[in-house]
Every structure is written in C-alpha cells, then in structure tokens.
C-alpha cells in the first residue's frame, strides 16, 4: 500500500534555469580517479 505522504517526500523540486549556474558550480564533480590520485600523492608523501 502506497503511503502518499511518504511518497511525496521522495519528490524534489526540479532545477530551474535560474538556479542551473549555481547548481553547476556547486556540483561535486569528484570522481574515483580524483580519490585514487589523492591517495597516491598521500602515499608518496608518506
């Protein structure tokens, strides 16, 4: 049985055009290659 209120919480507002730029700049683009690269650099420093 679907709980309407709970389902409604899963819906988020769509990104509007005016907010797109901020969203892009605030978007976390970190990927696994970045993480591995940092790990390698840290291991080299150690």
């Amino acid at each position: 049985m679907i709980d309407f209120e709970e389902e409604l919480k899963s819906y988020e507002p769509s990104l509007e055009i005016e907010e797109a730029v901020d969203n892009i700049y605030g978007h976390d683009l970190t990927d696994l290659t970045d993480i591995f690269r940092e790990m390698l650099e840290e291991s080299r420093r150690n």
Partner: protein
Amino acid sequence: MFKRLIATSNALYNEGLRRASIRDLSGAAEVLRTSLKLYKLNIPARNLLGLVYFEMGEGVRAMAEWVISKNFLPEENPAGRYLEEIQNNPTQLELISQTTKKYNQALLYCQQDSRDLAVIQLKKVLSVNPKMIRAHQLLALLYIQEQRFDLAKKTLRNALKLDGSNLTTLRYLKECNQALKREPERKKKEKQEEQLNRYVSGNEMIIQPGKLRDNTALVTILNILIGLAIGVLITWFLVVPGVKMAVRSEMNVQVSEANETIADKEQTILSLQNQIDQMNSQIEAAKLGEEESDTRLTSYQQLLNAYVAYANEDVNAAGQALASVNADYLDTTAQDAYETINTQVNEEYMDAAYKAGDTAYNEGHYDDAIQEFLKIMVLDETYHSGDALYSLAQAYSKNGDDQNAAVYYRKIATLYPDTQRARTAERFLEEYGDTAEDQGAENTAATDETAPAE
C-alpha cells in the same frame, strides 16, 4: 588502476547506452551517473546522461550536464551542439522554464494539501511537456490517493512508454492493478454500506436499511389520505379563520360606513327639520304679522268709520264701529283720538241703547230690550249704577230665560250689595236655586256677555 577505472566507466557507459536504447531511461541514468562517479571526464557518458535527462523531460538537468561536458571538452563536443540548439530556440527554452516552474508549483500544492490545484497544474505541465516522467508519476500518485485508479493507470502507462523500467512507475502501476482488482468488491461493499444506516444506541450498534421503500398501494393511499387530512386540518384551522376574520372585518367596515352614512343622513334630516321649523316659525310670524296688520288696518278703518258716523251724529253706527276697534294696535295719537271719540260716543251710544232698551222693555219687547242692554254691557256693566245690568236681568227673567237672568242677578248681588236691587236679585236667586247648576249658567251667561243670547 586509472585505466581500469576508465574501462569500467566506459563499460557502464555502454550499459547506459544499451538501456537508453531500450528506453530504460531511469536505469540508463543510474548507470551513467555511476560511470561518471568513476571517471568524470567520460564525455560520451555525460552527454548521454544529458540526453537521457532531456528525454525524461528534465531539460535543465540535461543542460547542466552538457555545460559541464562542454567545460571539460570545449572542442569537438556534441554537447556544444545540443546547447546551441536549445539556446537558439527561445520558445523551447521558455517551455522548459515554464514547465519546470509549474511542476514545482504543483509539488508545492501537494505539500499544502491542495490536490485539486496540483492535478490541474500537472495536467498543464504534461500538455506542454509530455515527456516529464516525474510529472506523470506525481499525477498518478495524486490519482491513487483519490482512489481514481483508472486515471492513475492511464498516466502510468504513458510514463512507461517513455521509461519502460522505471521502478517508481512500476510500483505505482502494481498498486493500481491491485486496487482495480479490489475495486468491484470495494464498490459492492460501499453500496451495502450505503444501504445500511448504523448508529449507536447506548451500548448497542443499531443497523437498519438506509432506504425503506413503501411502494405498496395501501401505503400510497394511506399517505394520500393523511395528506388530504392534513390539508383539510390546515384549511380548517388556518385558512378558514383567516377568511372568516377577513369577512368579519369587511362587514365591520361596511357597517361602520353604513352607520356613518346614517349619521350623516340623520344630521341632514335634523338640519332640514330645523330649517323647516325656522320656515314654519317665519310663516307663523308672517301670519301673525299679517293678522296684526289686518287688525291694525281694521282698527284704523273702524276708528275712521266711527269718526265719520260720529260726525254724522249716527251714534249707533259710531258705537258699533268703535266696538270693533282694538286700541292696542293704534299709535299714541290715534289712541288719544280713539279715547276722545269713544268717551263721547259711548256715553251717547249707551244712553241711546238704554233708552231704546227701556222702551222695548216697557212695551214688552224683551228680546229687543235684551239686545239693547247687552250693547251697554259690552261697554260698561256699571252704567247708571247698575240700571242697565238690573234691567237686563229683568228682561231675561220676563222673557223666561232664568238661566241668563240668574247670571246678571248674581252680578248685581255682588257689585251692589245691601241695596234693594241686591235683595231682589237674591230673592230671585233663592227661588231659582243658586246651586252648582247656576254656576254652569253663570259660565253660559259670561259667554253671552260678548255674544248676547237670542
């Protein structure tokens, strides 16, 4: 290590591409996001994610991905072309913006529990942007909440055509199918519930049929009769008294008006009667005035006749004329003349009458004598110390008229007591019997004074 990550990312891109090709857009988006988490510079994966978003009706999210992609690879990047196409089409850009705003507004309505407005808003969104999966799902959710499973199912099928493996869409659809399977039983149960009225009386739940149909002919006739009875009672107790009161009021008004009319007529009659009385009074006054004038005129004429007769030495005619004169109607000068003539005429008239009467008496002509003596009585009863009065009584007595004789004897006895004539008169009266009968005779004689007996 890096090559392995890039290879995995590429593999995921391929999986995303495969899923997108079979319109498993949500699955493709999920795989492509994972691909980009492994290697953010996977330009084809990011561009494809943008396309998937765009196909799902998420224009802004698509553009965001393409902008990032273009940022990572400014040259030879299809994302630039996608962005260029959108930016060169302001109408499409405006549509994306409007649908996004309306969708957000619909979501807000849902949160504010304004579901009707949310449904209207979502229908507008889908009429402009039918690819927006989330709008389909939200609309279906609202329909499900309102138990309108048919509409929800229809919306979800449209969503499935766009995104065939969307888990949310499938879950909602499954709910709809189950609900629609339960629908006949539910409707039947609701119908039964509608037909039953339940209420609690004390500790007991009372259940009775909701509608009690009395279609029997007997009940119908009974209802009609009850209605008629109520109608009659209402008419009798409410309408009839009102009508009676109105009639009574109208009658009272008419009676009042009639009374007023009668009072007016009576007043008019009274006024006319007063006028008649006044006229009668005037007529009476006029008659009296006329009689007075006649009397006055007659008096003056008789005075004139008396004067003429007196001038011609006809004393008898003068005396008769003077007897007809009423001195009260004469003015002062005429009254003086009347008194002068009357005094002189009367003396001569009475002397002549007495002489004639005495002559007639001596000759035995008692009737003539009576007439002459009566002329004197009219003017002066005490003429010659009662000679004329006594002679008159004697003449009546001689003539056999004892009744009138008694009248004048009685006057003699009264006016000249203790005289020979009085004693003679008393003797006569004693012989005659001066009783009550004499009183009647006296009255008759009194009449004779003005009208001598024949």
